[in-house]
């Protein structure tokens, strides 16, 4: 008696990877906006792909990028619920950890990393609906329409949250800058 091949034949994982892996930069950036550090962001991206693979057959038409980002956001939110903390409290600034960029002056790299940490820390303490809108649109690069689909809200709401979120972020970074100089 030969052992039957199991249902994995139903899903060709190569087909899934071909369709989903091109969006890894977007997911990585979204995950960076939703998590406290690079390690957590990479874990979130991996978990997103595993969930997406499991649900690939349920994805019928529609935009693959928005679908993956939705899974990423839901996964992040369930992590927040499990940890019983608001994401802003989990976030902390970090320095270092990026892949070394060949050919770049190490001092420039360090300065850029400090800037990223500063911005990430300011983003982390924004109210969640601003933070998520900014993460999807300004960091992830989704259009307002795509973000509206992911968030299940009108596009105008996304635009308003992005605008107000940017202003709050700029104001908080600048007030911090003034305080530091004084």
């Amino acid at each position, binding site marked *: 008696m030969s052992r039957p091949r*199991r*249902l994995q*034949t*139903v899903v060709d994982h190569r087909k899934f990877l071909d369709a989903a892996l091109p969006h890894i930069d977007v997911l990585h950036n979204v995950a960076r906006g939703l998590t406290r550090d690079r390690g957590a962001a990479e874990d979130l991206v991996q978990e997103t792909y595993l969930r997406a693979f499991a*649900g690939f*057959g349920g994805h019928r038409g529609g935009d693959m990028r928005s679908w993956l980002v939705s899974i990423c956001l839901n996964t992040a939110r369930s992590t927040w619920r499990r940890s019983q903390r608001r994401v802003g409290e989990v976030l902390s600034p970090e320095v270092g950890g990026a892949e070394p960029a060949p050919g770049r002056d190490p001092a420039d790299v360090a300065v850029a990393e400090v*800037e990223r940490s500063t911005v990430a820390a300011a983003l982390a303490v924004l109210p969640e609906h601003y933070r998520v809108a900014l993460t999807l649109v300004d960091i992830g690069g989704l259009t*307002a329409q795509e973000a509206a689909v992911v968030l299940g809200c009108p596009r105008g709401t996304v635009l*308003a949250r992005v605008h107000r979120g940017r202003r709050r972020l*700029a104001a908080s970074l600048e007030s911090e800058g003034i305080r530091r100089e004084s």
Partner: protein
Amino acid sequence: MSHSERTLAAFLVGDLDPVDAAEYDRHILECDACWTAVHEDRRGRDRLDTLREPAPARLADAVRQRVEAAAARRPQPRRPARIVATVVCVTVIVLAGAVTATRVGGPHRDPAVLASVVAAAADRSGVALPSGVTLDRLVVDGHAVVLARSAALFPMPPGGHPVNDADHAPWIAARGEVNLLCFSRPTPALLAGRVPAAELTGLARALGLQSS
């Protein structure tokens, strides 16, 4: 969001038509509140821009490895949460009677396979399976079904009919209480169960079987 803030957000995202946008441009020069809002928005956007970066190569490698491991480790039905019970090895017992009962013509395969699938779907314990055919018993959305897969096409039996006019359209057929739904693409798959034909289509979709 106030009316002026809505206009501002529309201006910033490029939604305003050229005439309105030009008018708003002039307004910004005269209005402190809007000037501040526009520039604060742009400063915020520029700071956030610094957070964008390509995913490290190691991340794509890790994703690929984990998906491959998941594919190899366990059955990966497309909607696994809905599929409760898994796969049984099917004992090979020849059911000559069943074969003659449903004998059909067909150049690709001995029709014994159809009789076997019907017998398995009707919960008869041992069924004959031609070599090259695998059979999984599944529970999908509470319905017990069997899914047969093969490299060769399953022949459409007498009384069966294609569900549409397309080439390679799925076909359906009934054998007593058992309904059959068969796909030829991407690989031949025959789903059968004591389930109404209309529901079988939904179960096939849950299993990720192609409908075209």
